[in-house]
């Protein structure tokens, strides 16, 4: 009885928070879900897509009972085994990522509420009515004001605390339950990201309800170094926007160059299309060491933790603007501005300044004072050759390189006056600087790389935020029928095996009329290539969310709009209610929306969290080779696993034998393999024969292109009946199927996992 009362009270509280009395949609079964609420859905996913663990370390070092060796059948002093320890790590990584985005959201929201008040209306323009698909689905709330976003965020913060609690010594003992919790953290992350980006769009008046956003100058060569240069590094635009306001208000914007690395660059270019985007995280240290920035302003996430050291070495002034990273610097928000400027100019002192207005004024004044005194020359080939002669090819640089290449060989070539190899290697460099730190002869490798870096200026399209409802209405049917063969989202960080892979992937799939979506550092890198006509992919393809379009949604937090678009397809096109109805949305996406994420250069915990959030929503993710270090994948074994679904129309469980999508989190080693996996992971059970034939056409054609001809050896698993066979390959595929004794099977009318596992949701809930 007491328990019933408790449940009722909790439900009442939730209903109050989500304003359940406003009947924009009926409240579904899981508004503000807690850890156990979507556990059955997770377990169903994990049954087919079992966790695959690659321990990065054999030990557990978390508590004072340890270190505990967890090899073979050993358990730690607390009883934990190696699989559970990996899952615990994964949960921690997801929580770090989720916290980074959500705390960013919290900070920016506080900043914007102070600026505009909590009643500032959320208006994303005439083409976006479903303003917050994640908040509506997960939280059950339709946010109308900035203040409403706080409600969503409070829920996220509360759940993060419970999840983090479970990682303490002597808690969860099942790897599957840790995975369920990681999936929960991933889902929360997309809510946090959505809060951040909606707040930014509303509060900073970013472009919205528009596809054709401005083309922004991209690349280190785009930065006018003859002017005082202010460089933003990080993800949070609170200060960068204030700097631009300050420059505008004081008529200084023409005199000062504003640029950025990483996501703050993308955010700032949404605020002012004159701000330059230098490049991704992997070019951060390279650019800082070039000394082009007079003032570096850091905010949060993906900023070098040795920034004060690097800034001093380059002769740049540093201002840390957010509490997340203060580097032990003196906090000067209360200090006299003139005195801060004096100390920064005369004493070369760096400061933390958490007051954005003060930070902006100081940055502008310091930049203008020190710029004329600083030399910003790019290295010449002759100078590079001279510096490189010290190299004795000891190989230490190669040993510490995370991308496993031998920069020493490139340096040795430079010493001979040959630059071809180092230009090639610059494309492989992930920008960590470990080679230079390890070099026993202290050769300034990054400086020498200046002769390898292209002096090309490129373009990146400014991030546009959410996909418009009007676009969803147009593409919803062809995506779910399969006639648009898929949505390919290239997202995330810049730990690429080769930076050139990205533009090639974008070009390949846009050309094939997939919808290509990009975000974060990947969106910049996509622009760092030009075709024979001198066009980047942003100039070559339409910016609309349509077949053959290349859409830049924006920074890391804008990733929520990509997954949000998948939810919108279920809600707008299929008219399924989303409010507190996560399972139905995820089930729809898994079975009917042919979308795949590619995080080819993922390195951060944020990427782990974003990817895991995609997985809970039924979107598979392909990761580059470095990502095996995340420790966990979700892989199926296509011929052995459970591919049963419920046919919701017939109310029958059908064993399809069709591994679609085959994996949920998958690492591949080469671009060529990724090119073949992308079309395969866009296949869904809901495809019509026409749609399936189009998808298989790309699968076969890319397989032939990159795998040396022939048919994919698993093609029979995806051909249900003869009309599924692509016309171009009809004869070849028919012969193959006949040879292996393939038997046709009926497509499933309305495939769903609901009804195949214990759930509060009824099968009827998926019928639209």
């Amino acid at each position, binding site marked *: 009885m007491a328990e019933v009362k408790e449940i009722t009270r909790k439900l009442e509280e939730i209903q109050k928070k989500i304003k359940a009395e406003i009947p924009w949609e009926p409240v579904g079964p899981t508004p503000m879900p807690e850890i156990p609420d979507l556990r059955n859905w997770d377990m169903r996913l994990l049954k087919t897509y079992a966790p*695959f*663990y*690659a*321990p*990065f*370390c*054999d*030990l557990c070092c978390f508590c004072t009972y340890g270190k505990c*060796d*967890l*090899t*073979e059948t050993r358990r730690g002093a607390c009883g934990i085994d*190696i*699989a559970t320890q990996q899952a615990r790590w994964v949960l921690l990584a997801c929580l770090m990522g989720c916290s980074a985005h959500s705390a960013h959201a919290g900070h920016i929201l506080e900043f914007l509420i102070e600026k505009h008040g909590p009643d500032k209306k959320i208006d994303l323009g005439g083409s976006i009515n479903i303003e917050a698909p994640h908040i509506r689905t997960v939280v059950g709330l339709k946010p109308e004001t900035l203040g409403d976003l706080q409600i969503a965020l409070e829920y996220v913060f509360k759940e993060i605390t419970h999840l983090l609690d479970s990682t303490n010594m002597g808690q969860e003992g099942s790897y599957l339950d840790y995975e369920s919790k990681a999936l929960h953290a991933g889902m929360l992350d997309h809510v946090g990201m959505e809060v951040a980006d909606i707040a930014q769009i509303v509060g900073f008046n970013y472009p919205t309800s528009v596809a054709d956003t401005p083309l922004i100058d991209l690349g280190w060569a785009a930065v006018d170094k003859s002017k005082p240069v202010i460089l933003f590094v990080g993800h949070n635009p609170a200060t960068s926007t204030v700097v631009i306001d300050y420059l505008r208000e004081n008529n200084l914007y023409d005199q000062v160059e504003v640029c950025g690395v990483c996501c703050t660059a993308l955010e700032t270019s949404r605020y002012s299309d004159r701000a330059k985007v230098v490049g991704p995280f992997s070019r951060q240290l390279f650019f800082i060491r070039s000394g082009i920035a007079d003032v570096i302003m850091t905010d949060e996430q993906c900023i070098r933790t040795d920034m004060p050291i690097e800034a001093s070495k380059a002769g740049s002034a540093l201002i840390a603007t957010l509490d997340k990273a203060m580097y032990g610097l003196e906090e000067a928000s209360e200090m006299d501005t003139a005195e801060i400027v004096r100390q920064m100019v005369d004493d070369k002192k760096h400061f933390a300044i958490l007051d954005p207005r003060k930070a902006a004024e100081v940055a502008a004044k310091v930049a203008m004072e020190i710029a004329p005194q600083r030399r910003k020359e790019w290295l010449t080939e002759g100078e590079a050759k001279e510096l490189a002669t010290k190299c004795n090819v000891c190989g230490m640089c*190669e*040993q*510490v*390189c*995370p991308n*496993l290449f031998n920069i020493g060989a490139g340096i040795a070539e430079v010493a001979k006056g040959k630059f071809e190899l180092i230009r090639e290697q610059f494309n492989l460099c992930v920008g960590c600087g470990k080679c230079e730190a390890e070099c026993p002869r202290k050769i300034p490798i990054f400086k020498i790389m200046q002769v390898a870096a292209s002096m090309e200026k490129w373009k990146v399209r400014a991030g546009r935020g959410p996909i418009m409802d009007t676009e969803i209405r147009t593409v919803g049917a062809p995506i779910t029928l399969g006639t648009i063969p898929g949505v390919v989202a290239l997202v995330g960080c810049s730990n690429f*095996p080769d930076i050139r892979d990205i533009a090639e992937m974008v070009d390949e799939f846009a050309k094939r009329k997939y919808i290509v979506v990009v975000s974060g550092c990947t969106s910049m890198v996509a622009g760092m290539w030009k075709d024979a006509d001198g066009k980047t992919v942003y100039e070559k393809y339409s910016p609309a969310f349509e077949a053959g379009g290349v859409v830049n949604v924006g920074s890391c937090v804008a990733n929520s709009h990509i997954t949000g678009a998948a939810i919108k397809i279920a809600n707008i096109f299929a008219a399924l209610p989303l409010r507190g109805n996560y399972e139905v949305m995820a089930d729809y996406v898994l079975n009917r929306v042919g979308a795949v994420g590619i995080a080819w250069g993922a390195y951060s915990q944020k990427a782990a969290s974003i990817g895991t959030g995609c997985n809970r929503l039924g979107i598979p993710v392909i990761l580059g*080779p*470095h990502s*095996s*270090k995340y420790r966990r*994948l979700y*892989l199926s*074994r296509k011929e052995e696993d459970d591919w049963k679904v419920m046919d919701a129309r017939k109310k029958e469980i059908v064993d399809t034998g069709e591994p679609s999508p085959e994996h949920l989190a*998958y*690492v*591949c*080693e*080469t671009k*060529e*393999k990724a090119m073949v*996996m992308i079309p395969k992971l866009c296949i869904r059970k809901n495809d019509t024969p026409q749609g399936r034939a189009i998808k298989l056409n790309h699968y076969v054609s890319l397989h032939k292109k*990159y*795998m*040396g*001809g*022939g048919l994919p*050896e698993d093609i029979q698993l995806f051909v249900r009946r003869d009309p599924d066979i692509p016309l171009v390959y009809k004869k070849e595929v028919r012969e193959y199927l006949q040879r292996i004794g393939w038997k046709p099977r009926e497509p499933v009318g309305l495939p769903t996992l609901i009804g195949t596992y214990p759930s509060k949701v009824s099968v009827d809930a998926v019928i639209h």
Partner: protein
Amino acid sequence: MSAVIPYHRVNVLTGIKSARLIEDAQEYAGLIQKAKRPLLVLGPLLLKSSLDGRLLIEYALEIAKAANIPTCATAHVRAKMAELGVKPDSFYDVVEIINALKDPNWRGVKKEGNHDLVLFFGIRSDLGEQGLSVLKHFAPHLKTMTLCKYYFPNANYSLPNFRKDEQWKAFLESLIDNLKKGV
């Protein structure tokens, strides 16, 4: 014995159980020949590197032929094999073959039962080392062996960090000879 540090420092072992380092090609050949159902997993680095003008894939295929070891082509290795007129015995990407190998009841690429010795050759070292970690922890029913130039702590049997390509080439050639001789 002091720990061997892998050439690529990202692969340094944090743990106790590490590979047995073997430099003697005859001993390697003996281990391979003792195996009942070996498997050779071929990675894409075999298409990039040469020893004395001969692509590594050619060494790999010669090893497979000499000891009658079935092959698994990962990544886009099959494209080059098609050019060379050789058909791999199976096609799995590296994480997929490792996922299958984890299962003691898997029937193997020849459908004769799971493999008891898996040789890895040509996978980029960080991914390879992670894959070996999977098998070290979750596949006690099999042994792993590497043929790459560097030491892999998570394997059961590994070559040392060869300082020079010539040493590696000599090892591979001796291995092939030993396998051919049936030592």
